[in-house]
């Protein structure tokens, strides 16, 4: 197996492990670190897929800016440590085996199919870049060009969506109406 593929699978496992820590950790800072692990592992995966621009964005924006916000937020909330001591809900012990069963069932099913249909996976390109990908795939130049032509409307639409989210947040947090003083 190609070294690239091995590393790709390795980072995939790391990112899933980070996700499990994020959900399972009782202390929010540990959860945040799990999230950071996931984000960095994802960035590594993007880089391996030759999507350098996305990898850089992932590190700068998510692992950098968003994580700082989240960690500050946890610090600001200043929850006492006894608040974390709550055990998992009783549904956890019901749901977790169910989920595990579903995951294993899927993996089992997929492996059965792969066994009978190995030809399909042999056609996958080990270099992890689609043969149809344009030249200089993943660079900032082609990224910007696609973003500002093919995906222009989606790009602009996202800015409107962000504006909507800002309005939504302000509408939720504002204090200048009766609800606050009454209750």
């Amino acid at each position: 197996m190609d070294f690239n593929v091995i590393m790709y699978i390795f980072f995939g496992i790391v990112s899933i492990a980070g996700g499990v820590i994020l959900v399972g950790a009782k202390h929010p800072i540990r959860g945040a670190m799990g999230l950071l692990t996931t984000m960095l592992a994802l960035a590594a995966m993007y880089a391996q897929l030759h999507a350098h621009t996305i990898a850089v964005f992932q590190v700068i924006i998510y692992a950098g800016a968003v994580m700082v916000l989240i960690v500050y937020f946890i610090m600001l909330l200043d929850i006492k440590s006894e608040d974390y001591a709550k055990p998992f809900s009783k549904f956890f012990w019901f749901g977790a085996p169910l989920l595990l069963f579903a995951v294993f069932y899927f993996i089992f099913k997929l492996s059965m199919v792969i066994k009978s249909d190995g030809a399909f996976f042999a056609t996958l390109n080990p270099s992890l870049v689609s043969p149809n990908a344009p030249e200089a795939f993943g660079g900032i130049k082609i990224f910007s060009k696609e973003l500002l032509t093919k995906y222009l409307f989606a790009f602009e639409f996202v800015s409107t969506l962000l504006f909507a989210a800002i309005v939504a947040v302000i509408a939720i947090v504002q204090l200048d109406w009766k609800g606050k003083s009454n209750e």
Partner: protein
Amino acid sequence: MNFDPIFLIGEFSLVALIVILTLVDAMRKPVFALLGSSAEITPDIESRNRQATWIAGIGLVIVAAVYFIFGKATSGESVSLLHDSLRAGGGVYIGKLAIIGAGILTILLSARYTMAQSIPAADYYLLLCFSLLGALTLIAAENFLMIFLSLEMMSIPIYALVGLKRYNSRVGESAIKYLLLGGLSSAFLLLGISFIYGMTGTLVVNDVLTHLSQVSQTVSSEMLLMGLGLVFIFVGLAFKVSLVPFHAWTPDVYEGAATPVTSFMSVAVKLAAFAVILKIFAGSLLFPAFDPLFSRLFAFFALLTIIYGNSVAIVQKNVKRMLAYSSIAHAGYMALALAPMGHNIEAVQAVLFYGIGYIAMNMLAFGVLVYLTYRDKYCETLEDLTGIARKYPGAAAVMSVAMFSLGGLPPAVGFVGKVQIFLQLINGKFYATAVIALLFSMVALYFYINVIVVMYMKEPEAEVANIDKKSMLPVWLTLGFSTLFILILGILPSPLMEWSLEWAKMLF
């Protein structure tokens, strides 16, 4: 780039309205209001609310008029715009008009509600317009990227609208529940889209459908992964239209949200999400590899939804909650038309017919609740409705019309809608399913008729409360329009059938 802005005239004028609404309210709202010292601003809220209501109401009517007049030119043939981002023109003209119409009715209901409950109206209408914009682009979306973005654009403002009165613990709970489950459903949708994208290499819906129709019937990795992607997309959308077992948020959110918001959610959001389901699962291309699976999925989930929604609705004492369960059941009826997976245009038409008719029915039912709500007096439970017929004969009469239509009795539009859906089942030879669904719509009649019985035949225990008749005209406009719509199209359904056929042709 070859792009004619006339095709997006509805969206553009709506964005213009959003900008105007933002700027006008920003002039009146000091930024420092956010940082506390709210005392001197509070008395101002009534005049601000009135101004925002006028701007939003008249503005949206203008948007509808502009789209109605100038968009008419686009109703001939649909075109793909902006590198397959949106498909505009053609039958989507009807869909957009229906959704803008639902928005206008919601604003008419909200005019009184925001006033009575001192909700900051400018933010409220702004969020409503954003959500409307999302619904408009959702039904026109041509690739999966736009479907996801529009779905978020439609949902995120609704999360905030539900939570506007977050100081009330019931509201806070329902808003956070909706936000979390909505996020989960988006994650499912995205996962499905990424599976599909990985397998086909394209995000454009039509290209993906072509790929799907060529997948062979033998079990292979391709079939498995694509099928998994489709199932995840189905789950993500089923959350939005609240099919059982993805319905858990619906009753709490519908009960906790402001009544006009509930009515908007139950009609516009549902209709737009159904348009996407129809586009992906019920188009003209057959999927030999997946049709049997989805036939079973739609039949199973739809039947489960109908059985669950109607049986739980019986025991509800709260009318809003009862309508929430009834709305779950109605989503089941709409999904049921797809059970044969015949990929015929009549099934798509039947669902759209039902969806458009459902706008009027639910607006009417929730409108009566808004009519009877004032200040601290919420009209939500059956007790609140007991014996109101004597004091408010008009409200009781239109509520009866709504209940008849929701229950599927002639001469209301709900009857014609149900008949079309059952015809689809019978044509697809789903006899057992049809019989069970029919049985449970009989069960549903019990709780719809019960509302009428309570209003007309029971004596109120306490005296029926007086309601302030101030600013009642907008509510009456909604009630009157919806009643006319239900009755006229219930007796002469052919125009609505033609409209839904037009729209179906575009999704097909």
